């Protein structure tokens, strides 16, 4: 139970620093290698990334660095390219017809878009939760949780899988609610429960990078709180990139916040700094509610 072993404050030794274009500053690294020797949370770096759908440019020349083991929030009005940026990390962007990517996304030192990199390998290392719940129908709740484990080369016996199901569902606060109906169809769950199930499904393979695309957009306040608490507990162990419409949420859960507008990164800074003393007037206009 590695995520319970270390108090959150211990794995957050110092404040991270993030700068926007043109040159990403070298960031203070959080040394979060767990004792059991598994890989540490990776750093995530966007290098002059441009993403297009046919003629339409969704993300324009974005450079941004996300510190390992930290939570980075991306905020901005609808259609500003937040989700597209996120979807470039696990190469979901390219699954859309006519979608193109230029520039690079580095996971630690590996370019996700290098020619010898297989998108499927990359995706197995990255957790992803979309805006609306997407439990796999025709699959039990239990099978949904371990869906990501079943595809790897690892062979897990039934007991290990059961243990993983319980551990992961407890993590997302769903265990008490579904323990008695693990073999049911997830369609019977409420929207909030379904979304937490999807979060469990993303966490079960223990990814070191988690991408959350407005994960609480369709959730009730209580479920939202649970998800935010979970994100908080992941600090130090997992690098989290979260896209959100909800400024309060960004302020609550993130260490650094990036503000995007019309596909461009306007500003990225420590969350407290960005919300109190934004450097760019457009950021200030947005966070004070003048548009978007």
């Amino acid at each position, binding site marked *: 139970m590695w995520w319970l072993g270390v108090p959150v404050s211990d794995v957050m030794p110092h404040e991270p620093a993030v700068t926007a274009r043109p040159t990403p500053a070298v960031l203070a690294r959080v040394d979060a290698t767990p004792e059991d020797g598994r890989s540490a949370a990776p750093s995530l770096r966007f290098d002059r990334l441009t993403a297009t759908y046919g003629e339409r440019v969704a993300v324009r020349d974005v450079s941004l660095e996300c510190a390992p083991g930290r939570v980075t929030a991306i905020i901005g009005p609808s259609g500003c390219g937040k989700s597209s940026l996120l979807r470039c990390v696990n190469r979901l962007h390219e699954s859309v017809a006519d979608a193109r990517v230029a520039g690079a996304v580095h996971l630690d030192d590996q370019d996700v878009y290098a020619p010898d990199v297989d998108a499927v390998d990359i995706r*197995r290392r990255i957790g*992803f939760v979309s805006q609306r719940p997407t439990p796999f129908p*025709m699959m039990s709740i239990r099978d949904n949780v371990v869906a990501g484990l079943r*595809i790897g080369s690892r062979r897990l016996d039934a007991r290990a899988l059961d243990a993983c199901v319980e551990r992961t569902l407890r993590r997302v606060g769903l265990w008490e609610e579904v323990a008695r109906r693990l073999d049911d169809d997830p369609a019977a769950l409420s929207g909030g429960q379904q979304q937490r199930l999807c979060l469990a499904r993303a966490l079960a393979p223990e990814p070191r990078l988690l991408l959350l695309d407005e994960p609480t957009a369709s959730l009730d306040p209580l479920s939202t709180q649970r998800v935010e608490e979970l994100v908080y507990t992941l600090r130090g162990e997992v690098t989290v990139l979260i896209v959100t419409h909800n400024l309060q949420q960004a302020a609550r859960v993130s260490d650094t916040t990036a503000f995007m507008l019309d596909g461009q990164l306007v500003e990225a800074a420590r969350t407290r700094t960005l919300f109190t003393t934004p450097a760019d007037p457009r950021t200030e206009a947005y966070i004070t509610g003048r548009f978007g």
Partner: protein
Amino acid sequence: MDRQLPVGERATLLARRRRSAIMTSLVWCASAVCLLPLVLITAHLLIGGARVLGPRFFTALPAPPGVAGGGVANGIAGTLLLLVIAAAIGLPIGLGAGLYLAERTRTRLAEAVRFLADVLSGLPSIVIGIFVWELIVRPSGQFSALAGGVALGVLMIPLITRATEAMVQLVPNALREAALALGYSRARTSLTIVLRTALPGIVTASLLAIARVAGETAPLLFTAFGTPYWSLRLDAPVAALPLQIFNYATSPYDDWRAQAWGGALVLIVLVFALSWLARRVTDRRRERLSSVVAGGAGE
């Protein structure tokens, strides 16, 4: 409530109600007329078929004219054999093509396949019979169960292709992306997530397609050909219910014509059973898919 209304408005209300009643009864009549042929056919079949129907009818081979009794046992078995062969050909090809159409919507090949599937489903079934006759019967020199099964299978392909395409397209794209994001390969996403999600709908469509071809007669005339004897060999003519009905009904013997009604009744019951099964699967699918869509996996 209308007691409190002023006189003028009350008249309007009454007029509206009258118009509503007239329209409702018109629509009701249309539905009744629509159902009438089915009711009449079923009633007629029940009356005509019940006379010959008995345990012997299902277990005996056809009797020569003038001999009492006789049944359609070989026809029932033959029809089932033909349907199995047809499904073995039509299902995999139809499923594969449908999946391709849904996942590669806009390629030129997809457009061509879609168009050809539509043409194929509009083709008179007797033309498919001639095609299979050219393809199998003539080269092999004999009518056969295989040829009949292939003819029915070809008929099934476009039905299953278009149904699979429609069902797979109902699967929310977010679900596809969720599987991809989890590290599923494209093929695995299609087969284990997309196809599995669409499966109840595809099963329904397949059952309906089987029910549809079960009653086909024309393509069997010069492929399966029919036989009064018991045979389940693939390389020999095989009996089929529609063929027996056709032969009996056009014969000059009264007892054979009576048997035709019995055979028709059995065939209709078979088709009803398949359709009913299809409906049951569909209801469950609706429940599931609607809850997923309501859960918000749209777009």
